[in-house]
């Protein structure tokens, strides 16, 4: 399996104005070095998901620039994990994962299937469940399939929009650990939108706290990698949690 090299993301003075004249984003600058990860946190409606959609090319900019421009990189260079698994109910697990390869026309069908099976195995999806349809899978299983689908094109940039928000705490922790393990094994540039401070600190090399359409504060995370969930008990983690929590409380005021 080939792995795409990670690519840096650079956002300059990004602005988005929705119909009605509301500025959702204004003057946002963000740099994510290649292979590094940034977590975006902030109150609901502060523009985190909008920025993620802008980076993916799903939301047009009203101002500023983002590099790489999605239309200038090969399809499959960027992958997006949605809040919901968003699987196609008429396809079984393996065909859901094969879908991006089919759409970008990468590999012959047997090769696509092999890649899909490989990534399903990477996310801990049982070989016996490959033929199961979304309606037959639990929430956690569906999210694993969704993650495998995002990774199957071996994207240089992985964008995650509160991917584990709908899961219970235990499952959320397991999948966050899985994400960290995969990131350590296959480094790629990641942007994670989350409401969960612990998740933001565990995944991000930097945590950006949004405040009214802008990045209000940035917190560098200096926890050693790999930051598995055990890091939560440490003093450094507790200090970072306090700093991000204070910044969020300030933003919510």
């Amino acid at each position: 399996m080939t792995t795409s090299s990670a690519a840096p993301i650079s956002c300059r003075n990004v602005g988005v104005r929705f119909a009605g004249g509301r500025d959702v984003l204004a003057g946002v600058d963000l740099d994510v070095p290649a292979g590094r990860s940034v977590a975006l946190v902030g109150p609901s409606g502060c523009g985190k998901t909008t920025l993620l959609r802008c980076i993916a090319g799903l939301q047009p900019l009203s101002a500023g620039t983002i590099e790489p421009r999605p239309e200038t990189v090969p399809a499959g260079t960027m992958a997006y994990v949605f809040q919901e698994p968003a699987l196609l109910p008429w396809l079984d697990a393996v065909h859901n994962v094969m879908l991006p390869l089919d759409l970008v026309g990468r590999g012959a069908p047997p090769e696509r299937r092999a890649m899909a099976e490989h990534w399903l195995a990477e996310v801990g999806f049982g070989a016996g469940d490959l033929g199961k349809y979304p309606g037959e899978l639990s929430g956690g299983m569906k999210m694993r399939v969704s993650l495998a689908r995002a990774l199957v094109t071996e994207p240089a940039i992985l964008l995650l929009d509160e991917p584990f928000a709908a899961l219970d705490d235990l499952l959320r922790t397991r999948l966050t650990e899985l994400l960290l393990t995969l990131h350590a094994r296959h480094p790629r540039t990641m942007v994670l939108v989350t409401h969960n401070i612990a998740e933001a600190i565990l995944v991000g090399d930097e945590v950006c706290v949004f405040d009214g359409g802008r990045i209000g504060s940035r917190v560098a995370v200096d926890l050693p990698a790999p930051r598995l969930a055990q890091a939560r008990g440490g003093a450094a983690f507790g200090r970072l949690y306090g700093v991000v929590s204070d910044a969020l409380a300030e933003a919510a005021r």
Partner: protein
Amino acid sequence: MSRTRIPWTQLVFEALPAAAVAAGVIAFWQFAVGYWEVPAYLLPSPVRVATALWEKRDALLHAFWVTARASVAGLAAAAIVGTLLAIIFSQSRVIRTALYPYVVFLQTVPIVAVAPLLITWSGYGQRTVILVSAIIALFPILSNVTAGLLALDRNHRDLFRLYRASRWPTLLRLRLPTAMGHLALGLRISCGLAVIGAIVGEFFVGRGSDFPGLGAVMDRWLAMGKTDALIAAVLLSSLLGLVMFAAVNLLTDRLLHRYVQGTGD
């Protein structure tokens, strides 16, 4: 996906009240016709209807079969044409705005008024009957499939945009599968209409000829005052509608159940 089987005892219990009502109505009908001495040309007794059903069984079964074939062909034609038109409609707002009013217009024109015109163009034959059936059955399929092709889940749409899927793969891999549930709904609404269309078509096509469909034999028996046979034919028409509905439900449940399970979340 495992589907729950309903035990036959439960089915019997569920069917019992409706069967009891039917038995009550038939009993009252038999009693009322005898008690008030209603003339048979106005309302024959259930026994006379049953007798007519038995005596004319060959003609009725043949008529049933002819009308069933026309209804199925009309429904199939409506499904194909409706889906193709819906695909065209889904491609652009301009096309929809330009053509949809005419589809609505077609729906509002009484088919009884159009049928003679269709005979002029298409002749006295099965083809015209199928045409009338298809025209009546078209609108629910067209409107439902168009809605289905346009009602994409936002995340699914974004997923296809992210991988820069062009119009054709998006249509084949996302829009059409998403619309399958809507097609199933359209077929369920249209299957009864297809039967009505076939019978209306046969009324006109069969006039003055020996066309064998249910609509044609009904028209003939009406003219001959054979009310008992006419009622027997009406009952068979209803049965045909029920059979069509059950068959469409069964087929769509078997073939399309994966497509009607929401967004996979």
